[in-house]
């Protein structure tokens, strides 16, 4: 690995330390704003544990930053389908997240059958499948099956949305 990529990797991991530190500050500030009179029945109060957690977060943040500066490195997680030899493929991840967000925006308005279809179809395409029509049909089938399965089998009514009255 070239020194440039090692440097970049190290810097990226500082972001984790930053996130931990920020989380610690948020937890601290949030706990600090709580006002509770001292009570005999609850001497610990709602603030103590948040303070401890905030402290732990900040300590971890500092130690992690030191560790990264000293060349320590978190070990990326492997797996059956994970190939760590190529860098993160944002062209797959971002469309995937896009399909996910689209589903969040659509689900209450357009209903699960439509948003679920968009979600599955979008994900399959993002992950590199190129059978547009077959994938589309599978997506519609999956959403319809889960919609009726949840309704009839479990009594959970997923939103019908735009298709209200048809389904």
């Amino acid at each position, binding site marked *: 690995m070239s020194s440039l990529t090692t440097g970049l990797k190290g810097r990226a991991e500082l972001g984790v330390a930053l996130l931990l530190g920020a989380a610690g500050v948020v937890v601290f500030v949030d706990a600090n704003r709580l006002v509770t009179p001292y009570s005999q029945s609850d001497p610990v109060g709602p603030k103590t544990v948040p303070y401890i957690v905030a402290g732990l977060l900040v300590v971890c943040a500092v130690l992690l930053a030191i560790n990264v500066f000293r060349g320590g490195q978190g070990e990326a997680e492997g797996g059956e389908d994970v*190939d760590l030899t190529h860098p993160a493929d944002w062209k797959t991840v971002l469309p995937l997240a896009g399909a996910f967000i689209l589903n969040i925006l659509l689900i209450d308005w357009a209903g699960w059958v439509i948003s679920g279809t968009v979600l599955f179809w979008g994900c399959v395409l993002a992950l590199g499948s190129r059978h547009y029509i077959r994938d589309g049909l599978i997506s519609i089938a999956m959403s319809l099956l889960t919609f009726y399965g949840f309704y009839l089998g479990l009594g959970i009514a997923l939103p019908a949305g735009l298709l209200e009255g048809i389904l």
Partner: protein
Amino acid sequence: MDVWSSLMDGFATALTPMNLLYAVIGVLLGTAVGVLPGLGPAMTVALLLPVTYALEPTSAFIMFAGIYYGGMYGGSTTSILLNTPGESSSVVTAIEGNKMAKAGRAAQALATAAIGSFVAGTIGTALLAVCAPIVVQFAVSLGAPSYFAIMVLALLAVTAVLGSSRLRGFASLALGLAIGLVGIDSVTGQRRLTFGQPLLADGLDIVVVAVAIFAVGEALWVAAHLRRTPLHAIPVGQPWMGKSDWKRSWKPWLRGTAFGFPFGALPAGGAEIPTFLSYVTEKRLSKHPEEFGKGAIEGVAGPEAANNAAAAGTLTPMLALGLPTNATAAVMLAAFTSYGIQPGPQLFSSQGPLVWALIASLFIGNLLLLLINLPLAPMWAKLLQLPRPYLYAGILFFATLGAYSVNLQAFDLVILLVLGVLGFMMRRFGLPVLPLILGVILGPRIEGQLRKTLQLSAGDPAGLFSEPIAVVVYILVGLILLWPLVFKLVKRNGPARKPLLPANSGAPEPTDVG
């Protein structure tokens, strides 16, 4: 307490046709998700939680029991046929198992894994049935100070012992504890970390957190590093073993069980250490040491048995103390809570029939695994050919569906995405996932015990040490925290440690100083 008659009642419940059906579904589902990459038993139980709210708790737990053991079995199939273990506990199985498969002995490797799992699972479950009531008898005498201490020990042990970097483990634990704080404080009614958002007042649903971290995080992470050329799974026929295989397997099965159960039952838990110990032991005791590294059947039989016995052992503290030490047990504990069942030593008295039906169904699930999966092995191997776009799109699809169906609000999906991105980041930078999940689940309960303890002592911190068990546990906590310092001193003076696993085994090497 009469273990035998309670257990027989449990069998009577578990063997009703409906419950038997749920056990079969659980076993099949568990094996499928165990075989499939990217899916695990913890995530499956989390995804099924909202679906099973419509069921009787007993039926749900019978299904979860099947998923728990099935997932373990499926994981070993994958590691033998693909040589890329999905779970850390099957790393060791992959070493010899895949070599055997490559040498054309996949059928024997799968057979010894399956039968070994059955033997270890059955012995382990029997030990669970015997040990858990004893632990309960001891545990009912404990008060809040001891519980607080034991929970702290469990959290620290899981964080400090497992994984390659203790520092990153603690970072993950701290994040989990912070997530667990979100919501209304049960004692004072104060809102913590809700940022004025009323939807956060009830806290984050554990289903949403678990699905986000396990499923969404995993899917995004794999998507970023998807193998362009899929791994070649070794085709396999019907698993079977010859006479010499049996002869070489039965002792490792029993030894593996002996390693696995106690380690699983300890609060530190985990199947990594016992599988590893079993491997090293078999290597030393084997009459064919030259075969190790080239596909020795003992190296599959022992660690697989250890793995399953540890899985059974893990259920002892989970059922007897309400203390989970692996991800699946943690999610099952959350399931108890969401059914309104209070986990802990009272569980055996308040929910006796349910607990014994669960234990009985573990025996049944084990037998089903053997009966169903030996003939089905070729089909499971085919499952590995599932096109990856469908697999990971399906994971995201069902993750969304599961998280949404808890409360039917789109806001939960936003949380799902945010925590999913957190899960992605944790995988990228080597933060272990388990401490976070345990932090979320155990955090609020630890806080409760702490407040109860100090309430009893009227705010005097000495109350924390008011029970002898608590003091003993704190000494253990101290030892665990100081262990790396001692280890460093020993290492400095002693000779360099020899690597015990062969190179390219896929086992993570401990790398850092944290």
